[in-house]
């Protein structure tokens, strides 16, 4: 067999195994969706869930499913997809596996936006003076503001390079957290409770309208992501080599960071400050499929959806009837992983 045929055979084999792994991830997500629909104050076994989804089940099953559980599952899936893709983009732009929306202050920036919004627009009777539908916009403004400051600091310090982005991001995230705490103490008590639930990240109060808006934003970002795929591939090279091959690096970085901010902010606006999904999902996808292939982004999206869904299911079952915020679960898994990656980075640099 000639060298060329071996190459083609190897390529075909690795492409096939990549596709079958992606299918396995999709199947796992489907199972989680059925499980997520079944678990709640009244347990529904998978058979009944599937029957109700197909429209054959008992009437009450259908009502519980379609009005309560599916919006929640849908929001977890959409939020997970958006956060994971956002993290994947940031990791490429920063050329650093540690870059993630929650590390770079984008998630906490969104939190400042939301808490500031609740504080500014509440009256003495603790009700909002404007529609709650403005809350996502406030989250986006906060996220964009903090991302812009982190970005400006990084650009002003080119010698530190991508690492500077992480350092400034961590500092900006700490600043945002402090601002949130201050705003909560100074703000009205009732709003503080509402803000707290939102801050720790929860999909418990999901409505179909939330799912629809978030899904629409993700769908709008998809063509941009497909257009950006070759740019993301080129960003695996160091900055100079990428530019020498013809990449307009500055424009690419700004565009991709904006896309990432849009995805994070819209996810966070609806599911709350669920952290570390953007860190874990791209990393897991890299381990399972590798980040060289075109399947990396789809795999990242599937894993992100599965992560938030699994976190929400876990949060519902650990201490019933209490429901933990899903964000607490992702943080409990994600923070140790972040530390592990940091230690490994250090080992590489030593």
């Amino acid at each position, binding site marked *: 067999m000639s060298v060329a045929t071996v190459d083609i055979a190897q390529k075909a084999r690795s492409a096939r195994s990549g596709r079958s792994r992606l299918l396995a991830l999709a199947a796992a997500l489907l199972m989680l969706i059925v499980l997520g629909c079944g678990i709640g104050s009244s347990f529904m076994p998978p058979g009944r869930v599937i029957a109700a989804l197909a429209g054959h089940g008992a009437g009450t099953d259908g009502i519980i499913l379609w009005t309560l559980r599916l919006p929640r599952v849908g929001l977890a899936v959409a939020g997970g997809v958006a956060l994971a893709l956002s993290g994947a983009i940031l990791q490429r732009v920063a050329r650093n596996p540690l870059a993630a929306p929650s590390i770079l202050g984008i998630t906490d920036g969104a939190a400042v936006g939301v808490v500031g919004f609740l504080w500014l627009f509440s009256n003495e009777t603790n009700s909002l003076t404007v529609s709650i539908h403005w809350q996502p916009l406030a989250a986006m403004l906060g996220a964009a503001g903090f991302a812009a400051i982190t970005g400006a600091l990084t650009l002003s310090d080119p010698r530190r390079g991508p690492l500077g982005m992480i350092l400034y991001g961590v500092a900006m995230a700490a600043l945002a957290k402090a601002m949130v705490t201050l705003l909560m103490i100074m703000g009205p008590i009732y709003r503080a409770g509402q803000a707290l639930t939102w801050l720790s990240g929860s999909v418990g109060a999901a409505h179909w309208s939330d799912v629809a808006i978030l899904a629409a934003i993700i769908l709008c970002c998809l063509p941009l992501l497909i257009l950006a795929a*070759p740019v993301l591939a080129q960003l695996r090279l160091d900055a*100079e080599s990428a530019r*020498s091959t*013809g990449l307009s690096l500055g424009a690419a970085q700004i565009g991709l960071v904006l896309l990432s901010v849009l995805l994070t902010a819209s996810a966070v606006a609806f599911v709350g400050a669920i952290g570390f999904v953007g860190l874990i999902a791209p990393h897991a996808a890299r381990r399972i499929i590798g980040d*060289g292939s075109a399947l990396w982004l789809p795999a990242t999206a599937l894993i992100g959806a599965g992560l938030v869904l699994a976190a929400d299911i876990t949060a519902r079952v650990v201490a019933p009837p209490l429901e933990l915020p899903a964000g607490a679960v992702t943080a409990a898994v994600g923070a140790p992983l972040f530390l592990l990656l940091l230690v490994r980075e250090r080992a590489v640099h030593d």
Partner: protein
Amino acid sequence: MTEPLFSLQKARAGYGRLPVFDGLDLDLPAGKVIALCGPNGSGKSTVLRALRKLLPVVEGRILLDQRELAAWPDKELARRLAMLSQSPEAPPEMSVAELAMLGRFAHRKPLAGPSQNDRDACARALSAAGLSHLAQVPLGSLSGGQRQRAWIAMVLAQESGTILLDEPTNHLDIAHAFEVLELVRHLNRAEGRSIVVVLHDLNLVTRYADHVVMFDAGRVAAQGSVAEVLTEQRLADVYGINVCILRPDELDYPVIVPLHTHARRSDRPE
């Protein structure tokens, strides 16, 4: 007279506030292997980066094919000009073939996979770099010489008429260094590509360069043929060492042998 490939006119560039060169005038001829040399910090690598528009010229201008560098769109420039920088980086799990395909960025059509053209160009680049048999091997498991050739394959896949190389023989043993420069000369002689290469090893310069530019402290100390530029007096002036230049009968290029340091510089106050 033929048009120069590059033309620097009163160019100034550097890092931060300190310019590495200022008011630099220099024409580089087309179709040759041009070596940029000079002591550490003399500005040769900075000039190369400015030629590739990786470093902006803050004053003056640089022309490529009589057209100001700043006016070239990024992709068009990449089809005209490829560059291998001093320490390029890619993930160790990336395969040689994947790396070569990244060199096709400026040629690829949006929203489409690699075309037959792209695949052919990569195959030619890998074969020229002698890496066809290692196409699917990850970069992390290559030797230093092989990895350098993999990067050269990426640069070749870019199919640009001019190639800039920043110390391509760095970290390579003598055999691999010669192998790389033999390839560079072949690209010039057989394919007519212009080459601009930063080289530290003057014995590689004498052997492979058609045209030499000697930098000293951000200015051009001399340029021309090897015989014109690399004289004992000039090396004493620029590097501060005494050298002996041998011209063995069996070689068609001179050999430079350093003798001892602390040479007297003729035209420069201490």
